[in-house]
């Protein structure tokens, strides 16, 4: 039995190995399980962008791309299995789309010299590239999100939040706990009162939490949720008649899936974002001609233009740009993961570049460096219009509170470096 399995698996791996001279961008997707609603559009967007590059430009600088998918179901064990099975295929950069899997892979990717991009999730202190050499979380991270939400509220309240009550509803896991420290610091700085309301995985059961919110009457609710937890929270907020415009979700709580279920009651709900919404960008025309019309769209092809599809597309675009960068730096078209890492570290997303790519104003401009793997951390706010069934960007991508986040990142990454005997530094 074991021997048979062995031969089968070996043969399988050999069959899976792609032809050489291809740029491999593995997609650790989840199209099943409790978070599938979020995983599907992201994976579709990620795959479609590379398909478009292949069809329109013949790949990146003439080298074709391939996007092998591996189903993780948001499960860390399967995530590890996927990482190991795709490692031999020469994957250039891993995007696990799960904080849990990110934590598993940070040390593994560092040891294997493969970069990982955890865009808007994962370990926040990975922003410190001197410690986390192979992990990137540009353009924004969880703590930028927390600070961005508070900044937005400050703006709404004329710069003063003292005496206000803010509740944080969060997924009771590593992901949801991330913003707590930042919000605590910010509450000291701005004098608002913070209450923490955990919701256990997967989050269908939130009655008692919202009862507590109804009793405490916070002025604002910030939510760090993912998957089914979001829809339930929006529905529960509507049930207790919490004013939707005072309810702000992190970017993982701000897709169509989260608000459609509540119908008209969700009107006015806000969410943070680090990229544009809607399909009103030139690149979508190319996707229509080169991908959808040719019948090459990933998945069911019905997600184009949704928030999470755009995020997958954005992630793919950043990966492709980093690959171009890497080719330029090392003057070769046959790049390795190690070269890809250098390309990511030298990434400079300017407005001209974005316009050239057909994505003008789609995301904030930012520059990655060895010290700063997290970009500039610019965060915008979107709002849901239930009647038109669409999200609109209601603020610019604006600065977050460096003074608060910087020391926290320093503290957390130094602790990690000490725990793991890492000598921080840029070589």
């Amino acid at each position, binding site marked *: *039995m*074991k021997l048979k*399995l062995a031969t*089968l*698996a070996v*043969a*399988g*791996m050999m*069959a*899976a190995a792609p032809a050489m001279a291809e740029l491999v961008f593995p997609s650790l*997707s989840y*199209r*099943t399980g409790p978070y*599938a609603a979020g995983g*599907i559009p992201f994976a579709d967007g990620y795959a479609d962008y590379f398909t478009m590059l292949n069809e329109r430009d013949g790949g990146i600088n003439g080298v074709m791309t391939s996007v092998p*998918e*591996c*189903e993780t*179901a948001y*499960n*860390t*064990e399967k995530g*590890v*299995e996927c990482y*190991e*099975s795709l*490692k*031999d295929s020469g994957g250039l950069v891993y995007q696990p789309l799960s*904080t*849990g899997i990110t*934590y*598993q892979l*940070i*040390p*593994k990717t*560092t*040891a*294997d010299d493969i970069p990982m991009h955890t865009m808007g999730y994962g*370990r*926040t*202190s990975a922003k410190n590239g001197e410690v986390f050499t192979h992990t990137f979380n540009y353009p924004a991270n969880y703590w930028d999100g927390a600070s961005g939400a508070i900044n937005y509220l400050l703006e709404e309240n004329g710069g003063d939040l003292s005496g206000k009550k803010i509740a944080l509803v969060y997924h*009771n*896991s*590593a*992901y949801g*706990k*991330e913003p*707590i*420290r930042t919000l605590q610091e910010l509450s000291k700085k701005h004098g608002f009162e913070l209450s923490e309301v955990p919701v*256990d*995985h997967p989050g269908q059961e939130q009655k008692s939490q919202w009862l507590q919110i109804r009793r405490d009457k916070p002025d604002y609710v910030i939510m760090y949720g993912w998957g089914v937890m979001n829809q339930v929270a929006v529905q529960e907020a509507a049930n207790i008649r919490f004013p939707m415009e005072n309810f702000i979700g992190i970017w993982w709580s701000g897709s169509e899936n989260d608000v459609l279920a509540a119908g008209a009651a969700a009107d006015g709900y806000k969410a943070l974002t680090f990229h544009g919404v809607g399909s009103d960008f030139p690149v979508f025309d190319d996707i229509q001609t080169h991908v959808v019309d040719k019948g090459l769209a990933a*998945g069911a092809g019905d997600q184009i233009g949704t928030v999470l599809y755009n995020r997958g597309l954005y992630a793919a675009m950043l990966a492709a740009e980093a690959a171009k960068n890497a080719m330029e730096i090392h003057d070769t078209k046959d790049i390795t993961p190690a070269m890809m890492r250098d390309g990511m570290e030298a990434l400079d997303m300017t407005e001209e570049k974005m316009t050239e790519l057909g994505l003008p104003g789609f995301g904030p401009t930012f520059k990655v460096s060895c010290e700063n793997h997290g970009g500039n951390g610019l965060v915008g706010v979107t709002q849901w219009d239930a009647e038109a069934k669409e999200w609109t960007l209601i603020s610019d991508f604006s600065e977050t509170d460096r003074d608060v986040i910087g020391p926290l990142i320093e503290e*957390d990454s130094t*602790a*990690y470096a000490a*725990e*793991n*005997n890492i000598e921080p530094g840029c070589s």
Partner: protein
Amino acid sequence: MFYREAGDFRTTYAEDQQTFPIRFDRYRYYLVLFAAIFVVPFVINDYWANSLLLPFLIYAIAAIGLNILVGYCGQVSLGTGGFMAVGAYACYKLMTAMPDVSMFVHVILAGVITAGVGVLFGLPSLRIKGFYLAVATLAAQFFLVWLFNRFPWFYNYSASGQINAPERDVFGVVITGPNAEAWATYAFCLIFTIFSAIVARNLTRGSVGRKWMAIRDMDIAAEIIGVNPLRAKLTAFAVSSFFIGISGALFFAIYLGAVEVGEAFGIQKSFLVLFMIIIGGLGSIFGSFAGAAFLVLLPVLLKVVGVDWLGWPTDIVAHLQLVIVGALIVLFLIAEPHGIAQLWRVAKEKLRLWPFPH
């Protein structure tokens, strides 16, 4: 034919009572052990270690542990995930508190601590049994997960509540963290698996195991013939939790390296291990291995066939996996309610008599 017993004479009681009384069987066992110890570590790579062998070995230990409790002593438990979490967190606290001590010590101590917790949650078993006990252990599962999420002391006040295994070694060989070699992690887990299987096998065929089985078969009758139910049940809980704690510690420290309690040790883990022993065969050490192999390796095999060979979309393969594994479980339990171990026993009987079935 396959089991040639001619000339296989046993002249002492010890020989007669050994685990593998048939010579062919015994040599096959030695061969597997030899291959596992002296061949596999030299040919292993990261994929084999991290995707197949480590989870198989670690789940086998958990299955052995649970089998002692459920299969041998008849105490239904749904708290496996929680006890694995105890092992993992105990190991983490020990690793960070005493960095210079060998990982062997940490893992074994983690097992001992879990044994203590197991005894604590085993106390209700003296008054309740069957489904009611299942619910009580279910409470243990939820309580333990809540506990490790609620009190930052358990995860050393880290911002995210995750625990990360720092780099630790055994006799100078790194076995945790990203720089651990595949063969080292495999060998480390293999030692614990072999040790668990041998200890469990010998416990279950000695007087302790007989007491457990007496309690399982009929507790009142067992009490009448002089088995102390308190001691029997609590030792079963202790030994079972010891193995489960070890598997939890290995699961966290060697296999995953970073763990979030709700995700890694949730209720689905309890069910998974329970399915392993039901499919593998209750009250059988071999069954624990067979069940772990079935549930760890089959999904990977289906994935390799579906995605890598046939090129089907990953989501369809993932759904098919659920369907196929589910259907196989049902079929299995209809065809052979006593699991793979019983199938193996029957096959062996037939092979011993072959080609003369009458």
